[in-house]
């Protein structure tokens, strides 16, 4: 019973995300595309919750849906003088894009289908526990094996470089 309700929620979320993603790349209005991207990102946070990665869902919501979307909205406001300037779709580009993405999707889908027909995944290997916040903190701040202090610090330097670079590029000279 619980399994079927989980499946229903997953399918609802998946359908919502696929429709939003297609709208995000197909809509001619850039503002609408950004809103659809927001829906996809919130749906992904929902999937992280279903996988029991609560911390990851919170990060996804706060960084992606909170930070990046605001950046996008400001960029749209700053670069669109004529309001929603519709861009006419170029037929050749659209055909090329559809061909490329269909080829890739067929190859990847075939690999997954083959893999799961040959070796069905066993349900016993699935961990269903939530990751403890203390464990995440220890792993993020430790220097031993499977601990991540060095990437964490490298990331902080990268973020600092991006802040300075962004200011330097975008300011009026």
């Amino acid at each position, binding site marked *: 019973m619980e399994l079927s309700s*989980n499946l229903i929620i997953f399918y609802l979320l*998946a359908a919502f*995300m*696929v429709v939003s*993603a*297609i709208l*995000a*790349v197909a809509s001619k209005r*850039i503002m609408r595309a*950004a809103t659809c*991207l927001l829906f*996809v*990102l919130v749906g*992904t946070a929902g*999937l*992280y919750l279903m996988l029991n*990665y609560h911390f*990851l869902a919170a*990060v*996804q919501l706060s*960084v*992606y849906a909170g*930070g*990046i979307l605001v950046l*996008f909205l*400001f960029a*749209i406001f*700053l*670069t669109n003088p004529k309001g929603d300037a519709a*861009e006419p*779709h*170029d037929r050749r*580009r659209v055909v*090329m*894009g*559809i061909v*490329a*993405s269909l080829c*890739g999707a067929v190859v*990847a889908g075939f690999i*997954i289908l083959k893999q*799961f027909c040959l070796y069905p*995944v066993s*349900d016993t*290997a*699935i*961990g*269903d526990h939530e*990751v403890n916040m203390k464990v*995440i903190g220890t792993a993020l701040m430790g220097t031993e094996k*499977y601990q991540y202090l060095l*990437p964490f610090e490298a*990331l902080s330097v*990268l973020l600092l470089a*991006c802040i300075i670079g*962004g*200011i330097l*590029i*975008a300011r*009026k000279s």
Partner: protein
Amino acid sequence: MIPMNHYLALSIILFFVGIYGFIARKNMLAVLISVELVLNAVELNFSVFNRYLYPERLEGMFFSLFGIAISAAETAVAIAIIINVYRNMQSIDIRHVDKLKG
């Protein structure tokens, strides 16, 4: 529990929708939105593989975490560049930005 291949199928669809947008769109911001879709699908894949194949470990989750942070940094720089391009050329259509083309 949901079968793993359902997550992977969803991730494939999101990834290739992003690829399509990356090729077909002409507004720079729309191209950037497509890149975000691709990155999002990849991060979903990382955490799904971690949860289903190695549930006692945390590597995939941390890959997703660092991927989210890196994509935030990348978006900030890309948007700064786009605003600068708009200021210099009054357009963010990728067909008009060809000064570096040989």
